[in-house]
């Protein structure tokens, strides 16, 4: 009797495991048909060597045809370079950029190997078998993730930047990888033109007269540390970024300032890059005594492909123009942001914007889908 019972229990345990296994297999199975292994894999002997953000010399297939963009910035660059249809894997965020999905229908079906912004699912990545993987600096510093990527034998490139110069380098590097160096160069040329255009007017302003700006990144109290892209472009735009060089609280790779600290800085202007945050700041009593709030100088930044001026935003040159005009309207009265915006997306994304959409981008509202909607269309 007792023996029978043990067998029964063993059987039961086995059955449970089997069932669980089947369940998981069922869950992951639906993607099977989406992509097969590509026959168009470029000749492996034909490779080029590039240097990534960490200074690693990496050998990648020339004119890589299957691209995994595990950092939204890389996706934006690839799309700008006109190779968006080669993207086979993305991060979830890319699926929610309205402009991006409108331009590239393949994004919606692209694989997401790192669900929930978490760890990379190696098998999913190998199944998609990209020629090259673009990852974020944070991922590149994570030993566990790197070990996995090494195992996949797929070359990965760290694409990140701490300032404008590095961003321009990375754009050119991606251009080299996907075989569009010219366009990348053209973009950087435009980037430099924007900087020159603004610098010509603001460089004459003495430091003490420059407008002191607090830049809120997503959350109200999240802001820029020193050696970051926003810190660099804000300075180029003629602003003094109050949070640079100060003690900030670091939580999961993000930097936060305390409320009292913001009160100590008392910035002249607050710019925020997430919709709703400006409203929150204006209505919150804890912020009410700031001069920027009292003088109604809290501005929502534009949001196009990405939030303009976000760490790693490709629209940084546009953010520089917008910020310069917002801070010093009398100096930039000749700058028509609607026109500039339309030109920008036409020139680099071949996207004809209506005035209405351009205004929508500039208002920073409604350019991103909320959770769940990315699968509906």
């Amino acid at each position, binding site marked *: 009797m007792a023996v029978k019972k043990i067998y029964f229990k063993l059987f039961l345990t086995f059955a449970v495991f089997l069932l669980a296994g089947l369940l998981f297999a069922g869950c992951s199975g639906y993607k099977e048909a989406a992509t097969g292994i590509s026959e168009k894999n470029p000749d492996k002997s034909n490779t080029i060597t590039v240097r990534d953000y960490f200074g690693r010399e990496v050998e990648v297939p020339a004119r890589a045809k299957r691209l995994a963009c595990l950092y939204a910035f890389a996706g934006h660059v690839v799309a700008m370079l006109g190779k968006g249809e080669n993207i086979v894997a993305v991060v979830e965020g890319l699926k929610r950029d309205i402009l991006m999905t409108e331009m590239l229908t393949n994004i919606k079906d692209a694989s997401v190997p790192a669900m929930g912004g978490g760890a990379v699912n190696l098998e999913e990545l190998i199944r998609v078998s990209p020629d090259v993987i673009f990852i974020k600096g944070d991922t590149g510093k994570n030993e566990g993730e790197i070990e996995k990527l090494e195992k996949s034998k797929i070359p990965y490139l760290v694409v990140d930047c701490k300032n404008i110069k590095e961003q321009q380098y990375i754009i050119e590097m991606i251009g080299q990888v996907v075989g569009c160096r010219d366009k990348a160069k053209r973009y950087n040329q435009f980037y430099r033109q924007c900087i020159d255009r603004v610098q010509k007017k603001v460089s004459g302003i003495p430091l003490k007269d420059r407008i002191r700006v607090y830049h809120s990144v997503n959350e109200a109290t999240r802001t820029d540390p020193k050696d970051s892209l926003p810190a660099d472009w804000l300075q180029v735009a003629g602003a003094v970024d109050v949070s640079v060089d100060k003690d900030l609280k670091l939580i999961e790779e993000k930097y936060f300032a305390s*409320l009292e*600290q913001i009160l100590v800085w008392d910035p002249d202007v607050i710019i925020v890059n997430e919709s709703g945050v400006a409203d929150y700041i204006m209505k919150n009593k804890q912020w009410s005594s700031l001069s920027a709030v009292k003088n109604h100088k809290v501005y929502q930044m534009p949001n196009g492909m990405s939030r303009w001026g976000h760490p790693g935003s490709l629209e940084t040159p546009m953010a520089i123009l917008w910020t310069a005009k917002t801070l010093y309207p009398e100096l930039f009265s000749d700058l028509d942001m609607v026109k500039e915006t339309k030109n920008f997306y036409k020139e680099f994304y071949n996207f004809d914007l209506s005035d209405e959409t351009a205004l929508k981008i500039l208002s920073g509202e409604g350019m991103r889908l909320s959770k769940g909607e990315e699968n509906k269309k």
Partner: protein
Amino acid sequence: MITRKKIIYAILILSPLVCIFFSLFIGRFPLSVPLVVKILWSKLAMSASSLPDKYNTVIWEIRMPRAILGALVGGSLAISGAAFQGLFRNPLVSSGILGVSSGAGFGAALAILIFNSTSYTYIFAFCFGGLAVLLSYLIGRVYNTTPAIMLVLGGVIVSSVFSALISFAKYVADPYNQLPTIVFWLMGSLASARYHDFIIGGIPMTIGIIGLIAIRWRINVLSMGDKEARSLGIDTALNKGIVIICATLATAGAVCVSGIIGWVGLVMPHIGRMLVGNDNKLLIPASLSLGACFLILVDNLGRVITGSEIPLGILTALVGGPFFVYLLKKTKGGGW
């Protein structure tokens, strides 16, 4: 004897107030001591303040709500710890150990996940907090020889399951909208405390605290054991239920305001016991007062030690962990 009691009560009421008062002087924004006094005075005297708005904001909108909320949270955690210890006749339990905090935390995360807003978090936090106590209690009854340790083990199991569920909730949450909210909720910080929080978080905490204070003498009776309590004419099931509901309400409110802060609920009642003895009539208010003072102090410490703030949970765990070991040694895993 009566005067001694009065003195004790006076100390218990005054000390949190003193702590709140002193924490108004501590922070990043440079304000000298006379200046703070002046700001306080100008408000109390209702005179039109000639001081810059910013000063008022720092004191009245940032430091004051933070201190008061800290006091409420610390008090709630400590008082519910004391209530659970009395109720289960077990010196090793608290709302953290019984899994109430993790349960409530998971409830909050689940509410954010389902409704995509924070409006239902309190109800969910309360329900799952209650569920956690119940589960811990049931697991604890599986094996009756060493009830004190079994209850702790039950709590360990329940709270680790709920912690895992929290991680799972974070994993499936939308990384752009929901995840920051959940992380923010669970982080355990009073940094952004606002008066708004009093309305939603303060109510459950206050109800819980008042309820426990009101029936504190019954906890004495309950702690004698079911049979004895019944023979004294007490409806044990009803009273136990009320104590658990109040303690869970207080804990859930605290978790909703400031995330999971461990150990306060375990350590404070014991320090209270060293000071005022075992009588719950005095111990319950003493725990409340001690918890309030402790959390304000820890919060201030976290603000002062480094430029950037140290999360509360780290400091309370550094104090509470070793203390738990000491308790284990002292009680030898048994009851009182």
